[in-house]
């Protein structure tokens, strides 16, 4: 029996690996996660990086020389604003433009409130940080001058500030970055499904569609051995995809300025091993369920449609976890998909878990795999499955 399963396994893998297009898909998908990761992190870092000088185009610099000197002293790079600055702001090329009106000097000298305008597009996420910095600098300048005017009249400036508002911004770059980092377990789990999808569709639905299932079942090999061999081949592809994803992350993480963002995440070799131990058992369950679904499908195409829908299953808990981390309880590890996403997340954050959660998650995957394989083997004794449903 084991010998026969091995024969089926070798044939399926050889057959599948010769299909260059599907192998290419199988390789591309796992690399998608790490690429998204790389792009997102570099984007985040570029938004938040503090040492970058604030670039502020100004209209009418000559009207406010002392303000300009103040801005430059505090690190702003000033330059003449182009004529079409409004369009440039809308298109996102410029973050903000400062306009100093002609009568600024007159108002200023007469001790009234002089007006400047900061032109921004508040709907543009990437410009928010620059805008905020420009506004703070301008407010600091106003505050400084106001204080000087009060001092000159012998009044303590504090009198004019009955309430001081200090803003505590909880939306730190760390949190945003952690959100992106939470996508890593999701992509690992997706790889466990995506890697074997092609082979699972081809090995059951495809086998019947091309008319080779009936001859195959004419061999004296037990149905269980045939199903087991096909399943092992599917698991191999899925496990390959998971490992490829992990390697992708390991390579990418060196090129990502995690420290700049103050993110606490472990992504070294032991952590990668921990994540592999967390997610690999899921491939047993995912592949067996895929084969079960594929056995029901009338054609290869139909199987692919069903299996794509099946991919939504890992997306749901993954999305929830990425947006709002759960308070982890032990039973959650026993839920396939959710358990693996939690485990991988905890490993990534460097939590010490002990072997029990790993064991629970692997055992539940094994149970699902055993059940789905049993059902699939039984389906292969049914005439409507072997000969297709008219």
């Amino acid at each position, binding site marked *: 029996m084991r010998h026969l399963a091995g024969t089926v396994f070798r044939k399926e893998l050889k057959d599948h690996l010769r299909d260059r297009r599907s192998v290419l898909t199988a390789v591309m998908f796992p690399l998608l996660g790490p690429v998204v990761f790389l792009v997102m992190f570099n984007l985040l870092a570029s938004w938040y990086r503090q040492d970058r000088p604030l670039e502020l185009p100004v209209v009418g610099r000559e009207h406010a020389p002392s303000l300009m000197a103040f801005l430059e002293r505090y690190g702003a790079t000033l330059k003449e604003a182009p004529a079409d600055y409004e369009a440039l702001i809308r298109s996102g090329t410029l973050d903000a433009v400062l306009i100093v009106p002609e009568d600024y000097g007159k108002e200023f000298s007469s001790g009234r409130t002089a007006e400047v305008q900061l032109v921004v597009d508040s709907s543009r996420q990437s410009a928010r940080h620059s805008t905020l910095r420009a506004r703070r600098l301008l407010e600091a300048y106003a505050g400084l001058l106001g204080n000087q005017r009060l001092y000159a009249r012998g009044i303590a400036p504090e009198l004019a500030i009955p309430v001081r508002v200090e803003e505590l911004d909880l939306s730190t770059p760390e949190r945003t970055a952690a959100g992106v980092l939470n996508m890593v377990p999701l992509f690992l789990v997706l790889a466990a499904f995506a890697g074997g999808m092609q082979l699972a569709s081809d090995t059951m639905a495809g086998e019947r569609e091309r*008319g080779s299932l009936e001859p195959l079942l004419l061999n*004296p090999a037990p149905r269980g051995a045939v199903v087991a061999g096909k399943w092992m081949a599917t698991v191999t592809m899925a496990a390959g995809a998971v490992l490829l994803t992990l390697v992708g992350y390991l390579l990418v993480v060196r090129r990502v300025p995690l420290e700049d963002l103050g993110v606490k995440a472990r992504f070294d070799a032991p952590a990668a091993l921990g994540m592999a131990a967390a997610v690999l058992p899921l491939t047993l369950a995912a592949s067996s369920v895929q084969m079960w679904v594929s056995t029901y499908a009338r054609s290869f195409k139909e199987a692919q449609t069903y299996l794509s829908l099946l991919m939504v299953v890992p997306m749901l808990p993954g999305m929830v976890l990425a947006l709002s981390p759960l308070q982890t309880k032990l039973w959650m590890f026993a839920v396939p998909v959710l358990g693996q996403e939690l485990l991988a997340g905890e490993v990534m954050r460097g939590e010490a878990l002990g072997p029990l959660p790993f064991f629970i998650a692997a055992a539940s995957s094994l149970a699902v795999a055993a059940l789905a394989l049993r059902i699939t083997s039984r389906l292969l004794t049914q005439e409507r499955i072997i*000969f297709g449903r008219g």
Partner: protein
Amino acid sequence: MIEARNLHKRFGAVTAVEDVSFTARDGVITGLLGPNGAGKTTTLRMLYTLVRPDGGTALVDGVDVVQRPEDARRALGVLPDARGLYPRLTAREHARYYGELHGLSGAVLDKRVDELIELLDMKDIADRRAEGFSQGQRVKVALARALVHGPRNVLLDEPTNGLDVMSTRAVRTLLRQLKAEGRCVVFSSHVMQEVAALCDRIVVVAHGRVVADGTPDELRARTGKDSLEEAFVATIGSEQGLMQ
């Protein structure tokens, strides 16, 4: 030897096979002849264990197909109605795969596969991938994998369907050779000429029942007709489906 005993099968409200019994002996080519829809394919499927009879049973070399389907399959070589190939495997790999599933390996398997390639005259395609094979080449591969374990009993469902003249001749030669080796050969056909050219014994099936069973001469004598074709028409009671 294959013995069918009162085989009966229904699919929902439709009765595919009402009552089929016949015996196919070793060293004899037995033809199942009948119009399309007579129940030939379902009968064969019950013989090769993929359809479970609702009544009756069959014995393959004395092994009951209902009770010990795996052992029955071991003694059978089958060319079923579905003869799909794996487009990315070569002809030789197809034969080897099935040989391994029958428990063959090593030098025995190599030798057996080489013999089949010789026998079926497929040296030119042996190491080519099955993608793009002609109908005749596909049937040769399907025959090679069906015969790789050297079965005592061979079942073929419309083996020459869709083949050109040369491939048809090749299949006929093969069946005669199997007969000469003392094997039990059963094949189904709806083409009278096919059956007349090959069979030592003819089982005529219509509406799920055996309506005649005997040698061509016996059939002619029983119906009192001179030509086999007239004899068939008389037996079945219609001309439908007997002509190609």
